[in-house]
């Protein structure tokens, strides 16, 4: 699983972009906004950052998009921004999820939990 990039595992190229994107407080704030309410337009996001220019917000969104943390979709004339949790899930699964084995019982447990909240 290594390539020409200094012997670094390939996955780390992807991860590098994710950590770089998350290192900036404005970008984390943009993700917070999308986490609270997904599918916002640039204008809506920009209105939450009055001290920043539209161009500045666009630049941050582009970094988030390149890292895969934001995915945009066209809806009519509008471009909507969605928080994509998959890259963070990949980090989680790499270091945290090692010992869990619950896939088989997953939905069964949910069912029990819904029926018996105690």
């Amino acid at each position: 699983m290594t390539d020409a990039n200094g012997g670094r595992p390939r996955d780390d190229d992807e991860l590098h972009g994710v950590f770089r994107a998350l290192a900036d407080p404005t970008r984390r704030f943009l993700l917070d906004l999308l986490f609270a309410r997904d599918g916002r337009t640039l204008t809506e996001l920009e209105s939450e950052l009055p001290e920043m220019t539209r161009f500045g917000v666009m630049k941050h969104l582009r970094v988030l998009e390149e890292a895969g943390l934001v995915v945009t979709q066209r809806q009519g004339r509008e471009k909507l921004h969605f928080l994509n949790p998959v890259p963070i899930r990949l980090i989680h699964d790499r270091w945290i999820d090692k010992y869990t084995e619950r896939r088989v019982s997953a939905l069964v447990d949910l069912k029990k939990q819904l029926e018996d909240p105690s």
Partner: protein
Amino acid sequence: MTATLTTTQVYRVYIKASAEKIWQALTDPEWTDKYGYTGFAHYDLQPGGAFKVVPNEEFKAAASQGGYVCPDVVVDGEVVEVDQPHRLVVKWRMLMDPEIAGEGFTRITYDIKDLGDGSCSLTLTHELEGAPKTAALVSGVNEAEGAGGGWAWVLSDLKSLLETGSTLAGRS
């Protein structure tokens, strides 16, 4: 300014595999049983064609151990659009829980885009209008209660399977 309100969830994963391979992992029952929630997905790959997911024996055994009779079909639906190996649209309904099943069909679009460098992006768009319980389940918020991590978890597991040949829990 009018605020957009959406119940749609969007997930994207980049996978070092061909579009054909990813398509197979999504639509071939032998592959769908290897990752995520497992189970054999059966698609009649034409508009209007039937779609269902049949649980494997291990899944059913775990269900009965939990004192619950697992239905013979855990997800059902209908194929809306097929553009192999790039786009698949299905109506989707989860049948494990009556309340979630009662929310009816939601709509999932899989888009596979070849990036030309031996990898593809897979984007899953789940339209969940009027289906808040289904939305919660697939977002993974009930994971701590054992409901699995939703689509983010499924796609992470799928990437792991296609790139390394094994899933997180070591199945292969």
